[in-house]
């Protein structure tokens, strides 16, 4: 056990901290709205140039080209969190498509898509879930029928973030309806301005449209968009789903929220008494602090296993379930502590923290469900972590 950094890494941390501090004025502000605002793109370009994002992606595809170093990646993430400087772009194109293409894309696909995606010039959305294919994603029905050099696609996707802004979609479609459900799926890329695509915003309980529904009617796309091979889309998608689950439940983000909650409870009063001085609220706060410590320590343990290239095991399988639940509880305590003011939302003079605790309380429930529901996570923990038997499949009637 050694939680100190070697001189090389201490120096790296200082270097990153200095870079961010000296160049913070280049970063976009809240007024620079829009995914492709010139200031955002310039900031992204600067960050890539300094190796603060796209760090391990080869230079020939527009990345920084460094050797993978988990510890350096972590230091960079921590310094962004500490400095409060806007983070690099992190859409689904960057976090999920790029790793997939690097692993399985053709040379042409890598050449064409990775660089503009990393630089924020090409926005992607993910076409996976369907109304009838949520937890059971492999039962998806959006159909792609071969026609010469093209596929003709019909069907519907849901839970598609950034579909309205996206230039491109990476999409799972059924190309072989006769095959078993995992074997008839193809992973394909195509432009969102292809005729026949309709995007409808999906308003959720937070009151905003964080997701969309996407409808395909006779959408004709070239076969050259297939990643890896036709009917092998399930394998392609699985590589990236692992990535998505890793992103949810980041202990550093949870810690930051906890610190915010402590500040809130020290600052706010009710009946002339500070919220933190209420023993029941303080008790709940301390219970959450223990969990925050636990998830941070768990995160350090996972990182060490990865550094040593050892299997992460149960410690990794529980992160999404525990992390999302903890975030939800932190928001829940903030709302309880704020009492009748905790329900204010939108705007108004009594609103606290811009209504963000309510927003998080609702959005975090979405995250408990999304990216593999809590119940699916428990199946995974039991089956892969505890080696318990899978649910027997019911006999399928012809």
């Amino acid at each position, binding site marked *: 056990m050694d*939680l100190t950094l070697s001189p090389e890494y201490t120096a790296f941390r200082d270097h990153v901290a200095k870079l961010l501090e000296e160049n913070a004025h280049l970063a976009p502000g809240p007024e620079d709205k829009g995914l492709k605002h010139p200031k955002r793109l310039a900031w992204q370009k600067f960050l890539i140039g300094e190796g603060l994002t796209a760090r391990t992606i080869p230079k020939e595809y527009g990345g920084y080209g460094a050797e993978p170093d988990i510890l350096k990646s972590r230091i960079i993430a921590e310094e962004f969190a500490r400095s409060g400087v806007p983070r690099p772009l992190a859409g689904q194109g960057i976090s999920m498509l790029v790793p997939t293409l690097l692993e399985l894309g053709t040379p042409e696909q890598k050449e064409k898509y990775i660089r503009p995606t990393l630089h924020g010039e090409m926005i992607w959305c993910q076409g996976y879930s369907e109304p009838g294919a949520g937890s059971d994603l492999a039962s998806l029905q959006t159909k792609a029928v071969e026609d010469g050099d093209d596929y003709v696609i019909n069907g519907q996707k849901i839970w598609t973030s950034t579909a309205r802004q996206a230039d491109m979609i990476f999409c799972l479609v059924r190309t072989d309806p006769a095959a078993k459900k995992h074997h008839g799926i193809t992973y394909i890329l195509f432009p969102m301005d292809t005729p026949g695509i309709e995007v409808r915003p999906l308003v959720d309980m937070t009151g905003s449209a964080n997701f969309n529904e996407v409808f395909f009617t006779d959408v004709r796309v070239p076969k050259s968009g297939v990643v890896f091979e036709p009917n092998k889309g399930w394998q392609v998608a699985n590589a990236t789903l692992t990535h998505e689950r890793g992103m949810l439940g980041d202990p550093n983000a949870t810690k930051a929220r906890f610190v915010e909650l402590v500040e809130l409870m020290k600052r706010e009063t009710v009946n002339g008494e500070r919220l933190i001085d209420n023993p029941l609220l303080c008790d709940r706060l301390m219970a959450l602090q223990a969990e925050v410590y636990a998830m941070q320590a768990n995160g350090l343990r996972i990182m060490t296993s990865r550094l040593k290239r050892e299997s992460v095991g149960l410690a990794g399988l529980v992160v999404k379930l525990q992390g999302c639940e903890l975030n939800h509880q932190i928001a829940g305590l903030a709302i309880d502590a704020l009492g009748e003011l905790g329900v204010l939302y939108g705007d108004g003079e009594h609103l606290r923290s811009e209504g963000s605790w309510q927003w998080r309380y609702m959005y975090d429930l979405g995250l408990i469900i999304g990216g593999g529901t809590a119940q699916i996570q*428990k199946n995974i923990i039991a089956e892969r972590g505890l080696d318990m038997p899978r649910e027997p499949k019911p006999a399928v009637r012809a």
Partner: protein
Amino acid sequence: MEFGLSEDQTLLQETVRRFVAEQAPLDLIRKIAEGDAEAKQTIATGMDELGLNGVVIPEELGGAGLGMLDAVLVQECLGYGIVPSGFLANVVASSTLSSVDTGLAQAIAAGEARFGIALNDLVSRRDGAGLSAENGGLSGTSMMALSAEDATHLLVCDGEGNLHVCAPEDHQVLSTIDRTRVFVELKLSKAKSQMSVTDDRGALARACLLLAADSLGASQAMLDKAVEYAKERKQFGRVIGSFQAVKHLCAEMAAKIEPSRALIWHAAHALDMDEDEAQVMAFLAKAHMSEVATFVARTSTEVYGGMGFTDLVGLHYWFKRIGVNRQLLGSPAQLRQMAAVAQGLAAA
């Protein structure tokens, strides 16, 4: 940067795990619960042979020169096998005394001194408990002293929070749900304080963390047993472990246990490094582990169904180990309050 166990620590863990599995089977624990002194001595002798009592004592004093993280790993193994032992009390006493009384530390390492500890009054005083130190004599009672029944020395606390070493005098055994371990009420009357140490709750933090590690081990044992049983037991023509209702209970236990393990390791390391947050982490680690362990104790028993409720499989010994650990040296609510005070979030 490395958050994990060294090769030596893994080896230590394996050694103690093997000792527990081979030398302390449930049959032996049952005998101890029935008051078999010989059975209890078997374990004490075995632990002496492994040199476990000197784990945190410096090598030049005859110990192993290791730290709290190592002690925590040993305690987790003891909790896994619900092994009654004086390990916790000896570790707490020797880590407190090593720097002030090398002779006593040497005696602990050599197995000549066996400590009992009575620190409960630092957290909780009921029924008039508490020791006062006047004119060098310690008088009063102290509830739920650990390993004091056959100790050669006692580490006790007075009303000011100072620690003292004294010889055992009178005590009364307290009958608890856990028959495998002996807890006593100390009764001292002008007992001579052989030495006094101002400690600022370091000993308490160590004791709390070791209890947390003990409950971690007991929880892991209960989960392992529940999972094993769920893979064998059949109902409705299927093993019950294939039902999601059962599987999810096991997943919930694992999901709570695994981060708790990292928390306890981290808290132990913080104590070893004497970090500012160390006490807060130790108190919160015990509070949190107690909550998790209580959940596991109840849930694993449910997975076992009716058999879990019987004496036949003996699962209740782990249930009771966890239940007692939870209340020793601070219930979760008391410890959370102490953690809030220690970081200036609540008034003392």
